């Protein structure tokens, strides 16, 4: 199938994304006037299949070394690969999500010797990959082209052991083949990225897409996503690309950003001092925060690619493709648009940038569905969004305890003034901790038993009768808080919630200091 239809639709949506974001693309030339960085990323994504790409071994991180192995993934003589159709499905989903054309594809052998590669060749896709020619829309509205997203097998994992003054002979390496044959999709971007911030944003967005397709768990710390960066710099306005270096070993977004910044600076320095950048592969060293040369272009491997004779071409039927894509949910870009629309964006109306950032965060965290459902039930959009990206985000692991119905009730209690913002937060925190209905929790906390206006009245009475203490409180004397709370407790015969009283005191304090903000809030 061709992803053209989806691509066309997304083109329109992409324009809207730029419009609703209310801000331009991330700035790129910061700190480097006169120069421009050109960055392309290769992201290796481990697919979340039950079994490996060419055999029935478990595909799971963290098993005892060399327990998930068989003659096929060990490359024992006589063994043959059989393609895992689930991996093909996930690759096609990735292709569809990135607006690629899904094509008939073949596997090749990439030949080179390495101890953690059981066959001493990697089965990969070469000049006929399954997905070609797509793009990824970033939250800031920029679009990064996708050259290809192809299937290949992972290698084993080598741990080098032995240091500390011993001679070379004393050192050894341990190889774990559990990872050998794990399915990967390598996603190669066009050199459309211009800064470390944008590189980071691209990988973050790609990660969200991969999770949304069900193709990956997105765990960079477990190596589920691994990034290589191709980086070059050129004078601003130049049309020709500079000589690029490929930087490997980028295991986190932070490493990626730091390595990109280091490499840009390094190359700019080389060029500014009249040197030439050598085309080479470089290694990012986290400890020294530097890239160092791994091998030059001349030392690059000749992989002697040829078509893998043990496998047959992959020609997915139209039916299979549409079945696979039909099972996919909406991608982050589309979800951002939906949420932004629910907040009033659209038809040329841009969201407030701060609000759009909350939209991006909510989608990133997968909270957009909850927020949209709550809005659908009648919750105030901005309050729901704010609570989701602040309080719920802080306790994201417990989000399953929260239903859209109870979340809407909470937001509405707050919106209607039955709970103060602080009370609402306290109740929400309780809902996340143990579930339950917000009204009931508020009652237990004394919020509902003492209607919030009653509590407010009681606090007001105490303040009015104790102007001296109030004055000390507003001046920042924290010791007086307990006294004021005690007075309120006494006046309400213990019905008030201590935290709620503190919250009310702080609310009044805020009003006294920023009265206009308070007007907006309620």
């Amino acid at each position: 199938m061709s992803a053209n239809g989806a691509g066309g639709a997304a083109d329109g949506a992409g324009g809207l994304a730029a419009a609703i974001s209310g801000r331009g693309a991330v700035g790129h030339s910061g700190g480097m006037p006169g120069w421009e960085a050109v960055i392309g990323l290769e992201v290796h994504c481990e697919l979340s299949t039950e079994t490996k790409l060419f055999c029935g071994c478990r595909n799971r991180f963290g098993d005892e070394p060399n327990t998930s192995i068989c003659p096929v993934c060990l490359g024992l003589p006589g063994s043959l690969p059989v393609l895992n159709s689930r991996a093909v499905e996930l690759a096609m989903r990735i292709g569809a999500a990135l607006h690629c054309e899904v094509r008939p594809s073949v596997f090749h052998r990439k030949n080179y010797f390495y101890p953690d590669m059981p066959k001493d060749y990697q089965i990969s896709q070469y000049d006929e990959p399954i997905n070609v020619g797509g793009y990824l829309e970033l939250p800031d509205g920029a679009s990064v082209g996708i050259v290809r997203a192809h299937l290949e097998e992972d290698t084993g994992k080598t741990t080098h052991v032995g240091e500390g003054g011993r001679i070379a002979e004393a050192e050894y390496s341990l190889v774990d083949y559990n990872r050998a044959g794990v399915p990967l999709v390598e996603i190669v971007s066009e050199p459309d990225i211009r800064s470390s911030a944008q590189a980071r944003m691209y990988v973050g967005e790609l990660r969200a897409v991969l999770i949304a397709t069900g193709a990956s768990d997105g765990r960079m710390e477990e190596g589920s996503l691994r990034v290589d960066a191709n980086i070059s710099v050129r004078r601003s306005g130049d049309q020709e690309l500079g000589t690029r270096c490929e930087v490997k070993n980028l295991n986190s977004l932070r490493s990626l950003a730091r390595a990109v910044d280091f490499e840009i600076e390094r190359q700019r320095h080389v060029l500014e001092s009249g040197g030439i950048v050598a085309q080479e592969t470089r290694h990012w060293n986290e400890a020294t925060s530097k890239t160092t040369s791994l091998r030059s272009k001349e030392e690059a491997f000749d992989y002697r690619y040829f078509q893998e004779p043990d496998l047959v071409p992959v020609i997915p039927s139209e039916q299979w493709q549409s079945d696979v894509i039909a099972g996919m949910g909406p991608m982050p870009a589309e979800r951002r648009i939906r949420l932004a629309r629910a907040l009033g964006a659209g038809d040329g109306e841009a969201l407030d940038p701060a609000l759009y950032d909350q939209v991006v965060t909510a989608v990133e965290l997968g909270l957009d569905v909850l927020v949209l459902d709550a809005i659908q039930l009648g919750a105030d959009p901005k309050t729901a969004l704010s609570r989701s990206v602040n309080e719920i985000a802080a306790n994201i692991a417990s989000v399953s305890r929260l239903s859209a119905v109870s979340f809407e009730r909470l937001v509405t209690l707050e919106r209607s003034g039955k709970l103060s913002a602080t009370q609402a937060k306290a109740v929400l925190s309780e809902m996340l901790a143990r579930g339950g209905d917000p009204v009931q929790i508020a009652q237990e906390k004394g919020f509902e038993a003492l209607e919030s206006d009653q509590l407010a009245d009681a606090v007001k009475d105490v303040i009015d009768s104790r102007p001296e203490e109030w004055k000390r409180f507003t001046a920042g004397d924290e010791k007086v808080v307990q006294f004021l709370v005690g007075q309120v407790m006494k006046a309400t015969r213990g019905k008030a919630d201590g935290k709620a009283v503190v919250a009310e005191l702080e609310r009044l304090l805020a009003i006294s200091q920023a009265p206009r903000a308070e007007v907006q809030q309620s």
Partner: protein
Amino acid sequence: MPAGGAGAGNGDREDREDPAMSPTVTDGKLSEVASGDLPFAGEHASRQNATGGPFQTATEIAAGVSKGEFSAREVIEEHLARIAARDGELHAFNEVMSRDALDAADRVDRLVASGEDPGPLAGVPVALKDNLCTRGVPTTCSSRILAGWRPPYDATVVRRVREAGGVIIGKTNMDEFAMGSSTETSAFGPTLNPLDNNRVPGGSSGGSAAAVAAGFASLALGSDTGGSIRQPAAMCGVVGMKPTYGMVSRYGLIAFASSFDQVGPFAQRARDAAMLFEAIAGHDEADSTSLDRPAPSVSSLLGAGVSKLRVGVVSELVDAASADVASRVREAANLLATAGALVDEVSIPMCTYSLSAYYLLAPAEASSNLARYDGVRYGLRVEAPTAEKMTTATRSAGFGDEVKRRIMLGSYALSAGYYDAYYARAQRVRTLILDAFDTAYKRFDVLLAPTSPTTAFEIGSKIDDPLAMYLSDVCTIPSNLAGHPAMSVPFGVGDDGMPVGVQVLAPALAEPVMFQVAVVLEDGAPTAKSRGATASVVPAHAGQGEGTPV
């Protein structure tokens, strides 16, 4: 021991030293009987073969065992005795699996005793080329680099032979990693031609061909990448068949050139080869290149004759052969014509490019297939200070010259800057050869050609001249490039008295018609005294065709 370093501490070797041991110890009935002089030998005297023993053909053994006329154990003991008596000299086997074979024979006998169907190969001794994985039994490819390696699994064909009641009797010698045409590149020493010990048995499946020719096994499996079943079959005077690519699973066949390799049978007669082919053929989900269709029944057509079949004699391949071999092919064509076939000459000029294309493509695949022998996980390891040096030292010590030559040829053909001129061009030639055959098969049902351009040559005569050796496969390689089935049928002898094989080539999936023709050739083949043997190389089958007396 011929097996050299292959397989440490296998009890089977001791069995080979004392052939009479097993019968004497385990079967009281035979305890008084010397090897080679078994009580039922006389009953089967009419089927005696070159070695003078009974139980010549697989079909007869399977029938006799199934009916309880004799036991599988008796059959296996007889064959083990022959091996013990003569394989020290011939070196057909790298490993004789005496105990496993006797255990398997007993299982077959128990099935028969309990009235269960023991399978179509009941009690038939089957030898396996040593590049077919056998669980727990050394599988070496006759290479130092795999010496002693015991696979943790059986090849699909091995499993199927067992399921059909066949008894695996041993692993046969071969050219190292199937690279060669004489079995002389084996790291464990050459196999001798049972018909003339100064000559090669052909290769690379020379051990399997010799095992069948010598009566060590009724059937054998080999692998054919460029003629490695058919050429040794021709040189040893037995039937050898390469199936359509994808007809037989390659799972567990240690790869030489994956897009060419096929496993196929050796037998004394075409109908026995058909029986083994039917047992191993058919889809295997462990091999992605395995055809997803039922294997054709070939047995049912064996007696159908060749009336009106269109047979083309490939002139380029006949021209490539020596005069005596070419004469046998023309005589075979005449025989078919007499039997009612429509015979004509056909020119397929593309065939002349086969050898060149093959020696780029097959080594290219081999260079990649053999990369895994790096000393890291299994097989030979020569220790060295770094992983890279260890791998270099291991491969330098572990591979023989011919294997190294082909790895280098193949690596070169795939290298940046040379790929288009060599590998890619050879692939185009392969396509053109396939097209040329497709065109020929519009006019003909089968094609006829020599199998080997010469009869078996003398040991040592070509081993130092790779090109001369490569030319030995000039008539068989085209079928591998096309992925088509082909088989060699013994048809008379050459001027030197050594057997000549005539090759029947057929289009993809046309095994049934190919066997149909083979049976007619076999039944009508001239027989002659062979050198060094005491009986006919090719037994005439009385009452069929034009069988000539010995």
